[in-house]
């Protein structure tokens, strides 16, 4: 590999980790905002560097979230909420630096484990994916959307509307089948479709900025600033290996399943570590096993979540959908074909992924103290800076003022919709999945010529169809249980 490529990748990983850790550490900002801010840079970078940068953001934000969870008692990301339960008490009773060291070491081991799962499972899964035809791809796309709506949302109807709106937004532009423009309203800038960067910034950056503005921007935060040396002895590490193993395994498996993601995996890992612990009563009071299990899980989820994207072309979460956007920006459609036709790129991504994890450890070890100091920065300084970088990102993606107006308009609408429990994450996931779903559906309908036998003779299609029905049944069950619980709570309050 060319030395200039190596330097570019190294710089990209450093930038990604720095921004990821910083945004992850600052409560209220988090992973999605970090990815949204760096995605526009993809236009001016090569495919490998831009993908590695976004993966580094993902890894960095997963660890960064634990910094504020431990030092402030406020999880920087939703994924770090489980870490806070034991992280903050441990920091208060013993040492903040040790608590951070537990988190960083577990995150690194979890990240490496997730990377190995990705490397070893990608080839067999891609080989399987090559056997799939259009109907199976259509069903996979549908399952991807159904899973997030059914498993990851409290209001299935609002989630479904968000998904349909995302699919509709993706139909704007030239129809690839007929070459005719659709829903462009004769606006030239829309003929290539809606700019994904304008969408991502509107949905994740602007809505978050408006949310922050609505609160107290001048709130002062207090951190546990003493003893921030991130160091762990071998004996201390040996004491938590079982919980790290549990977290890493759960994280990798959960990552592969669409709709669950790092948030769910950290809670599953925390509960599993507590159940298998010799002294479960110490959980919540500063048990290091309660720090390492969720941290190993949320970083292992990154590798697991990449697996369906690289092998099937199906992103399982909004953050992975945005990373898929970086592939698309460079004219690469993720899926089994890329794995077979462009092995150099995929191998470089695999190697780079492992380096992002190692880089995270090195940066975390030496820069956590600096990130901790940033935590006391008031939001009144952060918001204008984030806003300006978001605007520059949108403009530089296509040098079009139209995209700025589009982002602002959509940002305002998305802010109101978020208040009403619509999901911007499902919207963007549907937006990215739409081309696969629409193309496969249209080809499937043409190929089948209305014959039911066409579908019945495809065993994989039938299995996938059964899975989607099961997901629907599970979603219905969840809704009924949630309604019953709500009713019971109301009755209890009335009593």
């Amino acid at each position, binding site marked *: 590999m060319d030395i200039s490529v190596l330097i570019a990748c190294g710089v990209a990983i450093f930038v990604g980790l720095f921004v990821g850790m910083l945004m992850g550490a600052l409560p209220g900002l988090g992973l999605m905002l970090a990815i949204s801010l760096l995605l526009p840079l993809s236009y001016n970078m090569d495919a490998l560097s831009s993908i590695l940068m976004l993966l580094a953001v993902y890894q960095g934000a997963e660890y960064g979230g634990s910094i504020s969870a431990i030092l402030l008692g406020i999880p920087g990301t939703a994924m770090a909420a489980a870490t806070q339960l034991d992280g903050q008490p441990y920091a208060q009773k013993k040492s903040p630096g040790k608590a951070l060291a537990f988190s960083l070491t577990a995150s690194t081991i979890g990240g490496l484990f997730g990377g190995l799962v990705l490397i070893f499972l990608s080839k067999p899964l891609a080989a399987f994916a090559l056997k799939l035809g259009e109907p199976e791809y259509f069903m996979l796309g549908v399952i991807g959307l159904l899973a997030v709506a059914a498993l990851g949302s409290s209001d299935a109807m609002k989630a479904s509307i968000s998904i349909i709106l995302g699919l509709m937004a993706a139909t704007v532009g030239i129809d690839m089948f007929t070459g005719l423009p659709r829903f462009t309203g004769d606006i030239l800038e829309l003929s290539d479709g809606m700019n994904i960067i304008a969408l991502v910034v509107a949905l994740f950056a602007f809505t978050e900025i408006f949310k922050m503005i609505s609160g107290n921007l001048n709130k002062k935060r207090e951190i546990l600033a003493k003893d921030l040396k991130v160091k762990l002895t071998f004996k201390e590490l040996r004491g938590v290996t079982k919980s790290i193993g549990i977290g890493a395994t759960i994280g990798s498996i959960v990552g592969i399943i669409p709709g669950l993601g790092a948030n769910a995996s950290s809670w599953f890992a925390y509960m599993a570590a507590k159940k298998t612990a010799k002294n479960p009563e110490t959980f919540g009071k500063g048990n290091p096993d309660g720090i390492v299990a969720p941290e190993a899980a949320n970083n292992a989820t990154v590798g697991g979540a990449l697996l369906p994207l690289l092998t099937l072309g199906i992103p399982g979460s909004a953050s992975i959908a945005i990373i898929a956007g970086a592939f698309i920006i460079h004219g690469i459609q993720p899926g089994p074909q890329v794995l077979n036709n462009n092995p150099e790129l995929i191998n470089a991504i695999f190697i780079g992924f492992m380096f992002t994890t190692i880089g995270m450890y090195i940066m975390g070890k030496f820069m956590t103290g600096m990130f901790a100091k940033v935590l006391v920065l008031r939001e009144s300084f952060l918001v*204008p800076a984030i806003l300006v970088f978001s605007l520059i990102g949108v403009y530089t993606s296509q040098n079009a*003022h139209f995209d700025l107006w589009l982002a602002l308009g959509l940002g305002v609408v998305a802010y109101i919709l978020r208040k009403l429990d619509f999901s911007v994450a499902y919207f963007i996931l549907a937006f990215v999945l739409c081309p696969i779903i629409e193309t496969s559906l249209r080809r499937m309908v043409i190929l089948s010529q209305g014959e039911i036998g066409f579908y019945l003779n495809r065993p994989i299609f039938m299995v996938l169809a059964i899975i989607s029905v099961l997901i629907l049944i599970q979603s219905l069950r969840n809704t009924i249980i949630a309604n019953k619980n709500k009713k019971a709570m109301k009755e209890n309050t009335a009593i």
Partner: protein
Amino acid sequence: MSKKKLDISILVVIILMGIYYISTAVKANEGTPEGELGSGFFPIILGVALISFCLVSILKWLKKTDEILHFDGMKKILLTISIIIVYFLAWEYIGYFYILTFILLFVLFTVFRWPLAIKKSRMITVNLLVSLALMAFIYVLFNNLMYIDF
């Protein structure tokens, strides 16, 4: 604000949007040869699904009790949006990106930090210095390193 009223109003707007979307999709399908699928085929399915889900969501409100939706800090949000709009217009029609962005940063810092109980002259000096430092960083990053022309 009543969540029920706002939610139903938004759902009605989405339904109207869905109707317009379907009618555009039907027009896009015109002239498609028989036996082929026009560019409106998939959008029609989406439009129908959207309207159906919205109607179910509206019907769900019949069983649910209303909640109060709080829109805190609306004045600050509207002021920020207005400042952004003025910035967009000035950038599009006048140019001078770096100067305008410096002004935007300074204005936003001042608006957001105004409630702080510190000496105003000191606050303005800090805001000016931070805006200047950020602009210098943006200039070096985008102009000198990434060669982006605004």
